[in-house]
C-alpha cells in the first residue's frame, strides 16, 4: 500500500478550534451598521387559498417600520428555487419540463406558511409586531395532501402546463414508456417462480440541520447585490439571483457564511430571493432575515414522501429475473426539483441488483405541503426501505440467507451502474458484507432468533446500498481551483467548494498538502467569496471530495510541475532526475545538488533584477496552479449495514441494539471525518425508519414543525455503533477516495426494517415504523 504523508492521517479539522471557541460566524451572528430586519408575512391559516384582500396599511404605521412590501412591490418574475435546472443542458431542461412557478410573494397560497408580504423594520421585534397587523382575507380552496387526491380530475390545477397536477414524470423523449428500464419486464415475470409485491409508504422527513435559515442582503452603493448566506451552492445561487434580478453576475456577490449543517436543506435557494428582494427595496441598507425553527421547517425543502409500489420476481435458484416499481411522490407546493428525486429513486434501484429486466416509473405530484427537495441520499433511503424489504421477503420464500443472496446478485465492477451506460469501476461490497457479518456474529444470531416466543423478541437484518460520488453524467460536475504559492513556501487554495460541517475543507487541504509535498499546516483554503472563486457546482451528490478533490489535486500538480521545471533549470538537470523531500528538491543519486521550494517561491516573487545586466534573476513570476476539472466518472461507493433490534410485542416499541456499518469508501482521506459521516448518517437513517415524519392535519396545517413535536433520536436512543472502513482504491478518485457523505444514511433504513421483520415475522410497510404501526400489524 502506498505510504502517504498526510492522506489517511488524523489531522486536526480545519474548523474544529474556531468552533469550540465560539468564533465561527454563522449568518445570524453577523452585525452591520444600519442593519434593518425583514419579516416575511406568511399564511398559517390555510394550506390552500386565494388571497382576496391584503391590507398593509396598519402594519406600515407600526413603530420602527421602514416599509411594507406586497406582491407588486418586489419583482414579480417567477423563479425555481432549486438549482437542478442549471445542472443540465438547455435541451435537457426542455425535455425534463422544468418550470419556474415560484414568486417572492403569492396571491395563491399553496402550503402552510406560504409567503404573502413582508415588513422591513429597524428591529426584529418591530418587524414581527408589524407583521401581526397585516390584514389578509382568503378564499379557502380544497386541500390536496397526497398524489391520489391531487390527481383527481376535478382537482384545482396548480399549474396550467402540468395537467393532472403531475409536476413531473420521466419524459418519453429520454425514457421510452416514461420508465427507466431494461429488458422485457412482463416477459421476465412470466418466467418467475416466486413473485413478491407490495405498496409501501415513505415519510416526509426533515433535515433538521441545527442552524435555521438566516440571511443578510445589501444592495450597495455600487449597485451590487450582496447576499450573506449559508447556502451549499454559492456559485449556482449567484447565477440564480443574477437571473432573478436581471443583473450580470459581476453585480451579484455571495458571501458564504459558516454553514450550520445542510443535508440538502440548503441545496439551491431558500430565502435568498426574499431577502434580496427586500434589500432591493431599501438600497444601501443591509436587511437581515432570521428564521424561527418553525418557519425554517416549512420554507426549506424536505424529503419526498409518497407511495412506493414494487414487485420482484425470482427463479427457484434465486436468480432475480424482474423488478417493476413505481414511486408516486407528494412533491409539495412548487416544482423545485420535481425531476431529480423522481429519477434517482429509480437509479439507485437499478444500480443495485442484476435483475434480468427492470422497469421504474417516477412521478411527482403537486400537493399542499411544503416543498420537497434534496435530503441526504436523494431518493436512496426511500428505495432502500422498499427494495431491501422485498429482497428479504424473497429470501424467506427462497429459503436463502439474505447476505449470501446479496453477495451473489449485487452489481459489481463492469455491470451497468446507477446510470445505465456507465459501468461500475470499483466495488468492495462483498468485503463489506463479510466483515459486517463477522463483526456482529450474523450466522449465530440469525440462527438464535429463528424460534422466539414471549414479549421481547430480537431480530437481525441486513441491507446494502450503492451511491455515487458526484452526479456525472446525469448532471454537470465541474470545480475550478487555483493554488497560489507564497514566498515562504506556503500555499492558498481558492475555490468555492462548501464545507457544511462534513469536513470537506479538511480533506481538500490534505489532498493539497499531499500533492504539493507540503505540510498540512502550509495550506490555507480561501473560500466563501463568489467574486474570487471560480465555478463550483456546489455541495450535492456526495461530490465535494471526489470532484473538488480532483480539482485540488490537478491544480496542485500544476503548481508542483512548475516548481520542478524551475528547479530543473536552476540545477541544470532533467525534471525526471529530481525528487522532493521536506520541501527541498534534490537530484537523484547526488547528495549536494538541491534547491529548496522556498528559494524558488521567493525568487518567483522577490526578484530584484541583476543591477549589472538589468535582467531578472533565475525564474521570476509567482507560481499559480490551476484546474478547471470535470471528473471522469462517479466512483460508486457501496455499503452494508447490519442492524440488531429488540421488539416489545406488548407495546410495539422497537429498540435498536446495535448497528454495524461497513462501507466501501475507496480511501479514507481522514478516518475521523469518514466515521463522522457514517455515524451522523445512521442517526438520520434510523430516524427515517423509526420516528421521523412531518405530519399535517386534513386541512394541511403542519402539526409538528418543531423539535418539541418531531422526534429525532437523541444520545440515549442511539444504538451501539461499529464502523468498518473498507479501503479499496477507486481508479479515478483522488488518492482512490470515493464519497461517504450520503452513504451512511441509506442502509440503516433497510437493515432496521429487515431486523424488525426478522424479529416479528411481519413487514411494516409504512415508515416511520412507530409502535402504533407495529402493534397494529401484530394484532392483525
Amino acid at each position, binding site marked *: 500500500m502506498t505510504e502517504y504523508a498526510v492522506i489517511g492521517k*488524523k489531522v486536526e*479539522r480545519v474548523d474544529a478550534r474556531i*468552533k469550540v471557541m465560539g468564533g465561527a460566524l454563522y449568518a445570524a451572528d453577523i452585525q452591520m451598521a444600519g442593519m434593518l430586519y425583514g419579516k416575511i408575512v406568511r399564511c398559517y391559516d390555510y394550506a390552500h387559498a386565494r388571497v382576496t384582500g391584503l391590507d398593509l396599511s396598519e402594519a406600515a404605521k407600526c413603530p420602527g417600520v421602514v416599509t411594507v412590501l406586497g406582491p407588486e412591490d418586489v419583482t414579480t418574475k417567477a423563479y425555481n428555487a432549486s438549482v437542478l435546472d442549471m445542472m443540465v443542458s438547455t435541451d435537457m431542461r426542455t425535455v425534463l419540463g422544468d418550470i419556474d412557478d415560484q414568486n417572492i410573494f403569492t396571491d395563491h397560497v399553496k402550503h402552510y406558511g406560504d409567503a404573502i408580504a413582508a415588513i422591513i423594520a429597524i428591529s426584529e421585534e418591530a418587524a414581527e409586531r408589524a407583521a401581526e397587523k397585516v390584514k389578509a382575507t382568503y378564499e379557502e380552496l380544497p386541500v390536496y395532501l397526497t398524489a391520489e387526491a391531487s390527481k383527481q380530475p376535478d382537482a384545482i390545477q396548480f399549474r396550467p402546463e402540468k395537467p393532472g397536477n403531475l409536476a413531473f414524470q420521466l419524459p418519453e423523449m429520454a425514457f421510452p414508456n416514461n420508465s427507466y428500464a431494461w429488458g422485457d419486464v412482463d416477459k421476465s415475470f412470466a418466467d418467475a417462480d416466486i413473485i413478491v409485491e407490495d405498496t409501501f409508504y415513505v415519510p416526509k422527513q426533515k433535515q433538521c440541520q441545527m442552524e435555521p435559515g438566516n440571511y443578510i442582503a445589501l444592495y450597495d452603493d455600487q449597485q451590487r447585490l450582496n447576499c450573506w448566506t449559508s447556502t451549499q451552492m454559492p456559485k449556482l445561487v449567484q447565477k440564480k439571483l443574477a437571473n432573478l434580478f436581471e443583473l450580470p453576475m459581476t453585480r451579484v456577490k455571495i458571501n458564504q457564511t459558516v454553514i450550520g449543517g445542510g443535508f440538502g436543506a440548503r441545496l439551491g435557494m431558500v430565502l435568498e430571493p426574499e431577502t434580496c428582494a427586500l434589500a432591493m427595496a431599501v438600497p444601501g441598507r443591509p436587511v437581515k432575515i432570521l428564521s424561527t*425553527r418553525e418557519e425554517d421547517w416549512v420554507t426549506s425543502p424536505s424529503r419526498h414522501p409518497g407511495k412506493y409500489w414494487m414487485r420482484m420476481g425470482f427463479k427457484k435458484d434465486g436468480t432475480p429475473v424482474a423488478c417493476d416499481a413505481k414511486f408516486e411522490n407528494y412533491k409539495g407546493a412548487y416544482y423545485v426539483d420535481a425531476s431529480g428525486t423522481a429519477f434517482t429513486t429509480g437509479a439507485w434501484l437499478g444500480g443495485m441488483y442484476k435483475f434480468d429486466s427492470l422497469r421504474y416509473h417516477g412521478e411527482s405530484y403537486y400537493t399542499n405541503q411544503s416543498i420537497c427537495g434534496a435530503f441526504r441520499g436523494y431518493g436512496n433511503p426511500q428505495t432502500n426501505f422498499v427494495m431491501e424489504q422485498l429482497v428479504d421477503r424473497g429470501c424467506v420464500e427462497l429459503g436463502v440467507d439474505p447476505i449470501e443472496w446479496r453477495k451473489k446478485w449485487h452489481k459489481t465492477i463492469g455491470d451497468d451502474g446507477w446510470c445505465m451506460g456507465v459501468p461500475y469501476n470499483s466495488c468492495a461490497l462483498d468485503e463489506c458484507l463479510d466483515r459486517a457479518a463477522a463483526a456482529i456474529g450474523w450466522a449465530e444470531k440469525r440462527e438464535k432468533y429463528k424460534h422466539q416466543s414471549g414479549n421481547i423478541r430480537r431480530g437481525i437484518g441486513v441491507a446494502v446500498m450503492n451511491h455515487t460520488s458526484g452526479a456525472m453524467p446525469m448532471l454537470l460536475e465541474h470545480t475550478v481551483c487555483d493554488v497560489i504559492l507564497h514566498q515562504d513556501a506556503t500555499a492558498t487554495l481558492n475555490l468555492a467548494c462548501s464545507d457544511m460541517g462534513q469536513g470537506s475543507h479538511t480533506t481538500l487541504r490534505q489532498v493539497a498538502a499531499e500533492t504539493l509535498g507540503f505540510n498540512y499546516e502550509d495550506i490555507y483554503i480561501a473560500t466563501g467569496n463568489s467574486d474570487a472563486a471560480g465555478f463550483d457546482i456546489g455541495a450535492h451528490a456526495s461530490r465535494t471530495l471526489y470532484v473538488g478533490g480532483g480539482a485540488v489535486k490537478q491544480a496542485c500538480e500544476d503548481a508542483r510541475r512548475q516548481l520542478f521545471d524551475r528547479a530543473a533549470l536552476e540545477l541544470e538537470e532533467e525534471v525526471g532526475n529530481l525528487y522532493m523531500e521536506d520541501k527541498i528538491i534534490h537530484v537523484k543519486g547526488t547528495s549536494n545538488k538541491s534547491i529548496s521550494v522556498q528559494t524558488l517561491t521567493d525568487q518567483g516573487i522577490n526578484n530584484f533584477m541583476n543591477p549589472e545586466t538589468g535582467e531578472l534573476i533565475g525564474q521570476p513570476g509567482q507560481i499559480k496552479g490551476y484546474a478547471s476539472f470535470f471528473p471522469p466518472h462517479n466512483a460508486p461507493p457501496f455499503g452494508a449495514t447490519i442492524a440488531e433490534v429488540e421488539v416489545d410485542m406488548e407495546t410495539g416499541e422497537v429498540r435498536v441494539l446495535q448497528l454495524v456499518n461497513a462501507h466501501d469508501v475507496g480511501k479514507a482521506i481522514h478516518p475521523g471525518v469518514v466515521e463522522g459521516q457514517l455515524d451522523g448518517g445512521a442517526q438520520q437513517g434510523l430516524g427515517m425508519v423509526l420516528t421521523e415524519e412531518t405530519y399535517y392535519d386534513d386541512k394541511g396545517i403542519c402539526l409538528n414543525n418543531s423539535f418539541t413535536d418531531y422526534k*429525532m433520536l437523541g444520545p440515549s436512543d*442511539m444504538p451501539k455503533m461499529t464502523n468498518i472502513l473498507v479501503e479499496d482504491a477507486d481508479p479515478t478518485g483522488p488518492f482512490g477516495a470515493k464519497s461517504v457523505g450520503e452513504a451512511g444514511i441509506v442502509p440503516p433504513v433497510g437493515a432496521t426494517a429487515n431486523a424488525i421483520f426478522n424479529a416479528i415475522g411481519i413487514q411494516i410497510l409504512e415508515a416511520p415504523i412507530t409502535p402504533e404501526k407495529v402493534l397494529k400489524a401484530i394484532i392483525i
Partner: protein
Amino acid sequence: MKHHAIKLTVNGEERELTVPSNRTLLDALRDDLGYTDTKYGCGTGECGACTVLVDGVTSINGCLTLAATMDGRSITTVAGLARDGNLHPVQQAFIDHDAVQCGFCTPGMVLKTISLLADNPAPNETEIRHGLEGNICRCTGYSKIVEAVQDASDRMQGTGE
C-alpha cells in the same frame, strides 16, 4: 413594557444593560452584548444550542431564561472558557475526537459537558448519554461527542481540574 436595569458578569466582564421583561437571556447575550457564540436553534428549550453556564457550572437554556432574572449572576459562554490561549479540556477533547462537525450545537454541547462533569466527574457511557439528552446534534450521531466527554472526564480527573 417594564424595563429592568441589570448587571451581568459575562465571561468575567461586568456588563450593565437595560432589558424589557420579556427579553430572553439568549437575546440579551446575542443582540445586546454581542455574545453570538450562544446559538438559537429552536427557541423552545429542546435543542440546547443556547446552553450557557450560570455561576460557573449550572447549565441553563438561554432561550427559556428571562434576562432580568439573571441580575447579578455570572454567565459563561463558550467564548469564555479558554484561559491564556489554553483551551478547556472539554474543548480540546472535542477537537481531538472529531466531535465537531457543523459546529452549531458545539458551544451548547461543550458547556453542557462541563456542567455534566461538574455534577458527575466520572460518568459512565449511559450517564453521559442521559446527561446530553437536552442537546441535539444532527451531524455526529453523538458517537464522537460521547467519546470526547469520556476523554475529557479522564483528563480532568487526571489533572485535578
